[in-house]
């Protein structure tokens, strides 16, 4: 039912240039991206290909040099702080480094209460708030009773990242931007985090943009994959199409660079 899909976020000719004159760097180069509701999309590329810059522009953290972003059919307006906060109700992010994602002076309760307030639940009864927070923690297999009155740095990296997912669960944004959410976490907790993200998608129907350099991860989670090279999309399509039958040499190289277990890993290509 492709015609029933609703466009959630789209960009046209999005460009970011850092520096000027001789030091000019084209980080993102005229990117057209169309995201539909409930879709999981991966942006894959090696370091320096502009994935994170694109993500920051989508979030409104940096201003694009050129191009437009459309959010739910309308042109995005983030000209004031208040409008930005309104926009961030619809789009949220999980970053690579869980250790630097939290305010170290705020307890975990505050982190979660902030989310409830942002959703307009500031006037709820305390008991109701606790119920909401417990539900969110339950969703990511954390125990709220153990977390209350603790600071985020008392948790392990995997737990912090799961708490981040609990935040997203409370906020229920339309779009979630996950910027390498598992690259600093060891392989055993990675499966848990990915599963929780997928559950979140199934439950709330949000769109997830997954940014990673690990093409295997992208293949596991996403419906469609965009391959980025030097700020441009070189290949895009459904995950099966791009990963199992890559056309571009760049995609083939990325695939070759990942260690495999069923096929021979060719080391002669670097």
């Amino acid at each position, binding site marked *: 039912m492709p015609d029933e899909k609703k466009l959630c976020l789209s960009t046209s000719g999005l460009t970011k240039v850092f520096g000027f004159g001789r030091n000019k760097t084209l980080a993102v180069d005229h990117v057209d991206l169309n995201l539909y509701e409930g879709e999981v999309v991966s942006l894959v590329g*090696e*370091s320096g290909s502009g994935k994170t810059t694109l993500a920051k522009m989508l979030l409104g953290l940096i201003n694009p040099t050129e191009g437009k972003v459309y959010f739910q059919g309308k042109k995005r307006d983030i000209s004031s702080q208040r409008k930005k906060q309104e926009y961030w109700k619809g789009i949220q992010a999980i970053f690579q480094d869980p250790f630097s994602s939290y305010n170290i002076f705020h307890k975990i309760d505050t982190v979660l209460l902030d989310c409830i307030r942002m959703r307009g639940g500031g006037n709820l009864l305390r008991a109701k708030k606790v119920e909401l927070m417990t539900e969110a923690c339950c969703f990511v*297999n954390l125990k709220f009773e153990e977390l209350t009155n603790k600071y985020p740095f008392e948790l*392990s*990296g995997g737990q912090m990242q799961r708490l981040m997912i609990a935040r997203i669960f409370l906020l229920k944004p339309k779009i979630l931007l996950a910027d390498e959410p598992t690259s600093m976490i*060891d*392989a*055993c*907790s*990675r*499966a*848990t985090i*990915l*599963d929780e993200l997928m559950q979140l998608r199934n439950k709330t129907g949000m769109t997830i943009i997954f940014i990673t*350099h*690990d*093409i*295997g*991860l*992208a*293949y*596991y989670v996403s419906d469609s994959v965009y391959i980025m090279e030097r700020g441009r999309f070189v290949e895009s399509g459904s*995950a*099966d199409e791009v*990963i*199992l039958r890559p056309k571009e040499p760049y995609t083939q*190289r*990325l*695939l*070759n*660079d*990942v*260690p*495999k*277990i*069923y*096929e021979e*890993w060719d*080391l002669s290509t*670097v």
Partner: protein
Amino acid sequence: MSNTTLEVNELTTKYITRFQEDVYAVDHVSLKVEEGKSLGIAGESGCGKSTLALSLMGYYFPPLHYTSGDIIINGRNISGMDPDEVRKMILGAEIAYIPQAAMNALNPTRKIIHFIEDVIQEHDLYVNKKDIYERARALFENLGLPAEVLQKYPVELSGGMKQRTVIAVSVLLLPKVLIADEPSSALDVTSQKMVIKMLRQLMETGLISSMIFITHELPLLYNVTDDIMVMYAGQIVEKGSAQEAVFDPLHPYSKGLMGSIIVPEKGLRDVKLTAIPGVPPNLKKPPCGCRFAERCKLARLECWSVSVPLRELGGGRAYRCLLSEHELREAYAKEAYQNAR
């Protein structure tokens, strides 16, 4: 019989915390690495992989303390040796170590060649600088690194290049054993491949005779090493060849680890990744029974109370579980059948 370059018998080391509590991070670990072979150590964070690597070098500084066991490198027992002596005689020359963030080891204010001069002069004072330069250049070219790197400052190099430079420096004194502790975890996939290629090259050209590779990425271990050892809460829970450990794990923990492998190959999307619930036990008060019992699906009543020995199966295969090989296989087959339905 092939020569054993590194042999470790029942090594136990501990951390002593501020409150004088003992934390046994490496608990009766025995291993053997033969000449020309590489050993991989897998396990989640906090299971004692890196502590084992530090302990193997025999270079103890508080809060890490040596408790018991032997470390034999090339027929020489280095356990209990004076740390200063270890540093002069063993480190670099017999056993070299690449830490996790090796690239941060480079001094930002000095050129790479000065770093190399320091390393060589520390072990051999009367070498002139020209000889050192020639030696470094030959090694770098041998390993496929451009010789210009020697005259550069660390900030001029990319992350992958820095990592490879540090690896090249670590083998300058031709050590027998190289311990690589997550050498590629901070790098992207392309640089990671270059680092792995270089490590393989070192083994093939005979610059080092054995390697111990520590990581939590199983596909990587499978491609690099001959044998794999899985650690959990300071103990070895499974030993075997790479093939056996990845495709036919016996211990429930290694089974769980193997279930979390992600590779971009056909069929990945059909399998559901299995995550191991719970967290590892606190090593300040390790459980008296099996350390994995709390998270194990197959745990029985006696698992909580009886301490579990490492069962040797012959051919280098061993696992630490009360259940027999037959019982474990039966349980896994049943699980696979239920998942298929």
